[in-house]
């Protein structure tokens, strides 16, 4: 019994003090720490991959007036970094911020408004202009496909279906 107590005392003496001086001194987290996410508005193209991927479903990418708006409510964020994973431009990325306590929910909500492109046929805003331009660049300068890019998904379907019908009749 006494041996156990002596061993315990020895263990305690070896251990010393484990308390960190935080918050009196800052304690930066490890590299790669998944802190509060944020969006770099310059890079965002409004593709909505983040909204699809987020397990907490707190991101919404939808048209609002003449803008394509990404809105995120990080009060429900689980810091999983899927948004960062899937973002094609690196706009959505995790910071290392963990001191996010606030009395105002708005501190944890984020909005990115991008100029929306309007459909050449029906005039509805359907995607961010940046996204359309980016798609055009990836598609290259080849003909018929390029014209379809300036159409909203519904019109695109209708136009493409008409072309197919026409093609079937011809072919």
């Amino acid at each position, binding site marked *: 019994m006494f041996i156990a107590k002596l061993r315990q005392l020895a263990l*305690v003496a070896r251990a010393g003090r484990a*308390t960190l001086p935080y918050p009196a001194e800052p304690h930066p987290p490890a590299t790669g720490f998944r802190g509060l996410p944020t969006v770099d508005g310059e890079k965002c193209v409004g593709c909505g991959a983040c909204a699809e991927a987020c397990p907490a479903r707190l991101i919404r990418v939808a048209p609002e007036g003449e803008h394509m708006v990404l809105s995120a409510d990080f009060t429900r964020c689980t810091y999983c970094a899927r948004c960062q994973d899937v973002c094609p431009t690196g706009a959505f990325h995790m910071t290392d911020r963990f001191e996010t306590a606030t009395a105002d929910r708005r501190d944890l909500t984020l909005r990115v408004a991008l100029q929306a492109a309007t459909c050449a046929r029906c005039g509805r805003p359907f995607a961010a202009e940046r996204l359309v331009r980016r798609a055009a660049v990836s598609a290259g300068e080849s003909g018929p496909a390029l014209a379809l890019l300036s159409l909203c998904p519904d019109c695109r379907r209708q136009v493409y279906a008409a072309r197919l019908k026409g093609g079937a009749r011809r072919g």
Partner: protein
Amino acid sequence: MIASLLTAFYNLAFVLLFAPLYAGINRKIRARVHSRQGPPVLQPYRDILKLMGKEDCQVSDDPVHRLAPYLVMTGALAAALLVPMGFRAPLGFAGDGLVLIYLLTFSAIGTVLAGLSSRSPFAGAGASREIMLLLAVEPVLAAAFFTFGTRAGSLGLAEIATGVAQAGFAPSLLVGALAAFLAIQAESAKLPFDVAEAETEIIGGPYVEYSGPSLAAFEWALMVRRVVLASFLVALLGACPAGAPVWLSALLHPIKVLVVLVLTELVAVLSPRLRIRQAIRFYEGAGLLAVAGLLVAIFGF
């Protein structure tokens, strides 16, 4: 007369004002054993003040329930008046050691009454444990006290202090001191014998239904009790040379009390909690030890 009033004032001021400091030092020691930083040493003062400002929730109209914390405090303070704390005890008289033990028991009964009047099963469990523990521990304390009394030839604390110093070292005193120390561990409600207040088992036992100023009174009273018990042990051991100047013994007393309290804390921090039956069995053993010491003292050793 004036001297008695002054020493009475000193004793009361000492126990009331220093008790939280001792508690704070002990918490710091506990924290260091835990590898923690621990709260500031003055934290118990802030805790008491904070509690005094909080709402006192009434759970029972039983007047005993309201009074219980103050019974504990009164018993402890009355006991403090009997213990020499560097000066002559304010109320010293022949045989006052026994009265001291009664007063300490009285203050412990306050805890029991608190538990019984709380109408909570946890408080009731705590109260019954406290009674069982008291029944096991008091004889040990008494036997140790009688050992010292036998060696010094008197049951008055002042006489014991000088008598022990004159008579010098004796094996029975060693046994008596050990038994008294063990008894104080339970009387102070410290691990491994804090079974009556076990937070992880019965959520604090007798104190579970107290809040605000009543809880502040309880906490403070418990701290005071510990200081008085330590002072009692220090008084029994004498330890101050018989011809020492008063100011020296007055200065040394708080330090001696600190040593005793730190020892109780070290024992506490390295011990798991015993079950009530285990604790009772332990004190049966300690009781045998204390009685053996008494017999040795009676036979002149």
